[in-house]
């Protein structure tokens, strides 16, 4: 008689449940988005119009600005977070005395777990005025001919504020991954590099090159967190249907749009569906980024073995 593996019976449903849940969520997002596609086709993603009306025939929703804002602020966040996380990892592992090292690690891990609204309020009261005064104003007054700095920083609520705040929020996540990977590189590779007569900087660069997969994972995690972050961003981005490359311009993100509009969306015929379409866009962007990362990691693992 074949023996029944009780472990399998216990764990299989949990695994199946996760997959079913994923498929079901995807299904719901597609199903709920269908009405808006029937109503306006790809206009929902390609135009920047937000026209809510109690007369359904006049409704029109285009969330291009929010998609742009989500991607743009997340890129700013990652561009800020990666170098910070890498320097942090090198500092913690190579330079910090043990007590400082522990304090820094604990602080960083606590920061990763803080409720995001805490960042949001701090961002709105401290970060936004600070950036406006010390970064945006000087750059605008001297370099406004560059498109990136061309928007007058009237309120300070902007892509830049959101991106910087997100960068601060996601750095602890990227840091944790990169820090562990950096610490796990066997000492013998450092010895090898030093014995070739290389400087400390050159050795560090070689070792950092060995943790590229961790940097990619850290980047993915950071981007995923950043693009999904809602509350903190909606407090500092200005919530305006604006679509601009200028860092100082206010904008919108998909998550903050959904958070702001979902409560009263049921009043309108098409708005709920439009917001679901926004969620679907987030779903697709998130999945695509992760797939790209996984493909990269797979290729790396084929070639590089410690």
């Amino acid at each position, binding site marked *: 008689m074949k023996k029944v593996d009780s472990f399998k019976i216990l764990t299989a449903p949990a695994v199946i449940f996760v997959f079913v849940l994923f498929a079901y969520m995807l299904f719901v997002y597609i199903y709920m988005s269908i009405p808006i596609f029937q109503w306006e086709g790809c206009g929902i993603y390609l135009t920047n119009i937000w026209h809510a009306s109690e007369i359904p025939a006049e409704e029109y929703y285009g969330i291009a600005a929010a998609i742009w804002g989500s991607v743009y602020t997340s890129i700013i966040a990652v561009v800020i977070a990666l170098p910070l996380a890498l320097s942090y990892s090198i500092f913690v592992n190579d330079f910090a005395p043990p007590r400082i090292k522990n304090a820094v690690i604990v602080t960083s891990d606590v920061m990763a777990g803080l409720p995001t609204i805490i960042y949001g309020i701090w961002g709105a009261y401290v970060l936004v005025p600070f950036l406006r005064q010390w970064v945006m104003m000087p750059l605008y007054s001297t370099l406004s001919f560059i498109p990136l700095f061309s928007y007058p920083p009237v309120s300070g609520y902007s892509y830049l504020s959101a991106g910087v705040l997100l960068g601060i929020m996601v750095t602890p996540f990227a840091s944790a991954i990169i820090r562990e990977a950096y610490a796990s590189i*066997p000492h013998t590779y450092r010895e090898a590099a*030093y*014995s*070739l007569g*290389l400087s400390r900087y050159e050795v560090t660069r070689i070792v950092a*090159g060995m943790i590229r997969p961790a940097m990619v994972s850290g980047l993915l995690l950071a981007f995923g967190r950043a693009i999904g972050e809602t509350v903190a961003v909606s407090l500092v981005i200005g919530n305006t249907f604006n679509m601009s490359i200028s860092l100082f311009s206010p904008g919108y993100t998909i998550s903050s749009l959904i958070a702001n509009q979902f409560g009263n969306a049921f009043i309108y015929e098409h708005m709920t569906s439009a917001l679901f379409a926004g969620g679907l866009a987030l779903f697709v962007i998130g999945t695509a980024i992760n797939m790209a990362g996984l493909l990269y990691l797979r290729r790396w693992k084929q070639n*590089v073995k410690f």
Partner: protein
Amino acid sequence: MSNYAIETRNLKIAYGKKEVIKGVNFKIPEKIVFALMGPSGCGKSTLLRSFNRLLDLNKDARVSGEALLFGQNIYGENVDVMSVRREIGMVFQYPNPFPHLTIYENIAIGLRLNKIVQGREELDSRIKWALEKASLLDEVEDRLDDYPSALSGGQKQRLVIARVLAMKPKVLLLDEPTANVDPVGTKNIENLLMELKKEYTIVLVTHEPAQASRISDYVGFLYLGELVESGPTARIFENPKHELTDRYVRGILA
């Protein structure tokens, strides 16, 4: 000018308060294989790492006495540690080619960063030369852009030797280079060392007396941080003066 490649004078090494090398004196002539043998934990790896100042990486390690490289004390004042390391190549117990660099890049990186060669052509020819010297060229010539993961343990170790030889060092330090290599790979590496000693001074750390007797010309026996005996290999193995050495080479020293 001394005609010894390496000479130590009352060299002592301590980790914190624990002295692991207790004042050793020996002279290693040029272009020979000098084997440093002894049981695990006797301080051989530590001693070896003091010859290229790799010990500096360990913040607790303290060195006193002198270690002369071709007559010059590498622990003297105004010594450029990085240039000392460039003159002395080191091969490790665990074959450690950089896993994220191709075979070609593994050898190129030391040359590039130290600005030893100029231009692509010179780099190419130096890399081919080093691989040839390390008896690896035939095996990897058509796959220089592969990663080291495609190589066997013995081949990886010879890649490390090529990486070191490319720098044209004067002395090679090897820390149990065959400990993680299979018997065939071990034989290849031992043959290679016999070949290389014509041009380089080789200091080999081993915990196998048999390996020391196979390939070394001179041997030093290190026990609990002290150099018990050193001299020509044949003499040490056939006619040891010290009882500890006798027991060690006969394999009955616990």
